[in-house]
């Protein structure tokens, strides 16, 4: 077994499961969004604001954002361990990725529940 793992879960099985479940959630969210935009051709601010004012839409959106964060981290961690071999560089890039994901997640929450 490979034990020197820098990922959060440190288990390939849980990473694999998270990647698949989050992919399904993101697919559902994407299909919903495209469908919504197609069914509202002359979309104005009030309708759009009204959609995101509802609790279920906020929960659905937050679920999608969290899924995106987890999906992006596992995917990019894999890419980085494949292609960046010097430990210092890889570690720096991983920190930058985590930081970016965290900022986008907090920002997403702020957008959903903000004014």
């Amino acid at each position, binding site marked *: *077994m*490979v*034990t020197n*793992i820098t*990922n959060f*879960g*440190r*288990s*390939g*099985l849980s*990473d*694999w*499961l998270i990647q698949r479940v989050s992919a399904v959630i993101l697919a559902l969210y994407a299909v919903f969004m495209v469908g919504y935009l197609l069914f509202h051709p002359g979309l104005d601010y009030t309708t759009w604001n009204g959609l995101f004012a509802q609790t279920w839409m906020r929960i659905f959106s937050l679920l999608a954002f969290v899924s995106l964060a987890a999906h992006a981290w596992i995917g990019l961690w*894999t890419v980085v*361990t*494949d*292609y960046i071999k010097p430990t210092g560089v890889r570690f720096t890039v991983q920190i930058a990725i985590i930081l970016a994901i965290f900022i986008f997640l907090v920002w997403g929450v702020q957008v959903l529940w903000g004014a």
Partner: protein
Amino acid sequence: MSMLQVSIYRYNPETDSAPYMQEFQVDTQGRNLMVLNVLEMIKQQDSSMAYRRSCREGVCGSDGMNMNGTNGLACITALSDVVKNDKLVLRPLPGLPVIRDLVVDMGIFYKQYERIQPYLQNDATPPAIERLQSPEDRDKLDGLYECILCACCSTSCPSFWWNPDKFVGPAGLLQAYRFLADSRDTATRERLSELEDPFSVFRCRGIMNCVAVCPKGLNPTRAIGKIRELLLANAT
């Protein structure tokens, strides 16, 4: 005259500072030879050219190499299968250190094979004659035991190229499943616990290069999927 233009990867670490490609002209007389026959004809022209070969019939797995960009066994690959415009490019198996010309160091490949403990483990007292198995259980090993360890699959796998020290590779994983699927083996849990990290099995991205090149027509990707299912079924 039907001249075949053959370009071969040459490297002798004792005399060459860097690898280079050498051109050879081979008169096939229009015959649809195997690539190994062509190599033997080139060996007549230049006896310093090094490659591995033994059984010349796809059983020993010695002459795995990269022919016009695709891994395979030179002895059972006909020119008509790989040659385009009378040109043939031969390179060593990708991703492994080159010892000389087409001969590679398979050390890390064997290390991954050793890691999955490729032997039957059973903690019960051995019976007087042999451990019996039903024909149905024996059928589960078809498509798994036939592997000859030629390394064509693992050296065509990008996941193995980037992490040969951590990812077991298609050849090793096919054998890992061969023992997981064996009704006589009792070490299933121990075997699975050695494979659940993010690299050993899960670095497989399912691109199926292994299936495309296997000279024995085996399917390591399916075996890897079965290992994932077993890991999931045994998870808490």
